Each structure stands twice: as C-alpha cells, then as structure tokens.
C-alpha cells in the first residue's frame, strides 16, 4: 500500500517537473512580455500544485501544511502576475505586432486615475 | 558529493560583499549608494552563516521528543544574522529618510552637491 502511494506520488512529481519545463520553453518561444507572463503563470501554478500533491502522497504527515501551501499558491500567483502585467501595460511595454485586440484600452477611459482626499 | 558547498556559498558571499562595497564607494547617486550598502549587508550575512556551516549538517532543530537526530550546524552565527537582517532594514530605512529630506532641500540626488560640511 505504501509503495503504491509512493509510486503515484513520484508520477505526480515527474508531471510537475514536465509542466515547469514546458513553462521554461514557453518563456523562450513567446514573442512578447504579455504572452510570456501568461505562459509562466499558468504553467508554474499547475506545476507547483502537482509537485505539492506528489510530496503529499509520499509524505502523508506533511499533508496539512501542504494544503495551506496549496491555498497560498492559488491565491498569490495569479494575483501577482495580474498586477505585474497591469503595471507593464501602464508603463507602455511594447506588444507584439500580431496583437489585434486590446480590450483593456477599450474598457479604461480616464477612470484608472482617481483622486483621494488625504486630509482626515 | 557536496564536499565544497560551504566554500562555494562563502565565495558568493565574498563577491557580493566586495561588489556592494565597490558600489557604495564609486556611485554618485545616493539611492545607488544605499543599494550598494544593502548588497554589502547581504554578502556579510551570507559569509557569517557559511562560517557556521558543518559538512552534512542539518538545521539545529530537534525532533518532537527532544532527541538530536543528526549532526547540527552551529546555531550561534544564525542567531546573530537573524537580528542583523532586521537591523539592516532599520538602518536602510533611516538612510532613505535622510535622502528624502536632503532632496527636498536641494533637489539633487548627487552626493557631490552636498558640500556644506566640507572644508
């Protein structure tokens, strides 16, 4: 029984490594910053989750801590890359020439700047 | 296998410390100087932790029953570096506060423009 769990965990570890490798290849192949950050975020989130699952199957004692890690990765990874991409858009990082549609430009007028009152 | 891990990491610490010192001395921009200082601090911290490293040692934490399971690394340098990192943040923040006030005064980040105490 323990051997079977270990084998399944090993398979998940290998799957996670392959996903991360695909992310690295995608970083090299993609034409511009926005495509690259999309590839890196999706593949690395999935790869990290697979690695965590594999470790949890091999070492069942660590499972509660790995669940907490799961939640943290699922929350923070997409949010941070969303913010990085948004910052890149507003600092005018150039897009690839093949980009046809720019939805963010349509939906944002001047509303992204707002004035706040600083006096209490 | 990992015969030279301590030496390799210590060499990295030396290179970082010397690069940081070079940046601190050679740059004119005050923010760049503070960046050099923080890199220097990081390098010195790495050197200190590497001094306490023991070949094949594990972190100095016992198991749940309070028995030593394996060879430990030295806990004393780790304890010193722990406080040194937090103080490094405090000192960096203090220097940046000085830079903000100096910039409000003279509108320049160049260290050569501040000659009030030079005589």
């Amino acid at each position: 029984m323990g051997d079977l769990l270990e084998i399944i965990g090993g398979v998940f570890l290998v799957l996670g490594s392959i996903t991360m490798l695909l992310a690295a290849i995608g970083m090299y192949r993609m034409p511009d910053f926005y495509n690259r950050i999309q590839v890196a975020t999706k593949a690395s989130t999935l790869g990290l989750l697979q690695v965590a699952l594999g470790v949890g199957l091999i070492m069942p004692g660590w499972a509660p801590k790995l669940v907490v890690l799961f939640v943290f990765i699922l929350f923070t990874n997409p949010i941070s890359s969303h913010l990085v991409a948004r910052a890149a858009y507003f600092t005018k990082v150039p897009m690839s020439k093949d980009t046809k549609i720019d939805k963010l430009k349509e939906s944002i007028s001047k509303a992204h700047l707002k004035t706040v009152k600083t006096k209490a | 296998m990992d015969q030279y891990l301590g030496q390799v990491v210590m060499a990295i610490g030396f290179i970082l410390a010397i690069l940081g010192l070079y940046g601190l001395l050679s740059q004119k921009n005050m923010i760049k100087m503070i960046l050099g200082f923080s890199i220097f601090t990081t390098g010195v911290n790495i050197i200190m932790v590497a001094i306490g490293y023991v070949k094949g040692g594990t972190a100095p934490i016992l198991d749940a029953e309070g028995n030593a399971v394996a060879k430990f690394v030295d806990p004393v340098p780790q304890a010193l570096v722990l406080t040194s990192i937090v103080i490094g943040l405090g000192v960096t923040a203090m220097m940046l506060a000085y830079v903000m006030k100096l910039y409000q005064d003279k509108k320049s980040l160049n260290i050569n423009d501040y000659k009030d105490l030079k005589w």
Partner: protein
Amino acid sequence: MLTVLAAILGIAAVVGAYYAIHNEKLTAAIIASGIVGMVSSILFLLLAAPDVAMTEASIGSALTTAIFFFTLNKIRQTNG
C-alpha cells in the same frame, strides 16, 4: 548536487548585484537588488538555516524593495 544548485543561484545573485550597481534606471536597479535578497534567502536554506531564510525572504525581498519605491515615488513627486 546541492553545490551545483548553489553555484547557479550564486551566478544569479552576482549578476543581479552587478545590474543593481551599474544600471542607469533606478527602478530596474531596485528590483535587481530585490532579486539578490530572494536568491540569498534560498542560499541560507541550503546552508541549513531555515530561521534566517524566513527573515531574509520577507525583509530582503519585500519590505526593503517597498521602502526604496516609496522613497523614489516621493522624489518623483517633489520634482513636480
């Protein structure tokens, strides 16, 4: 094996430090110094110092970078 990993991380740290010192753009230099902090936290973990690695990860890469950017923003504001 760990030695090779440490050497690769060390190259990243040294390149980041060189970039932080020699780049003209301040924002890029600050982010490079944040990378140095993050990499050095992994080096602490390799040297069997998890306590130090935790502190360095949250202070060296998050708080220091944030304080530098607050200063930069203030300087840009004062400039008008």
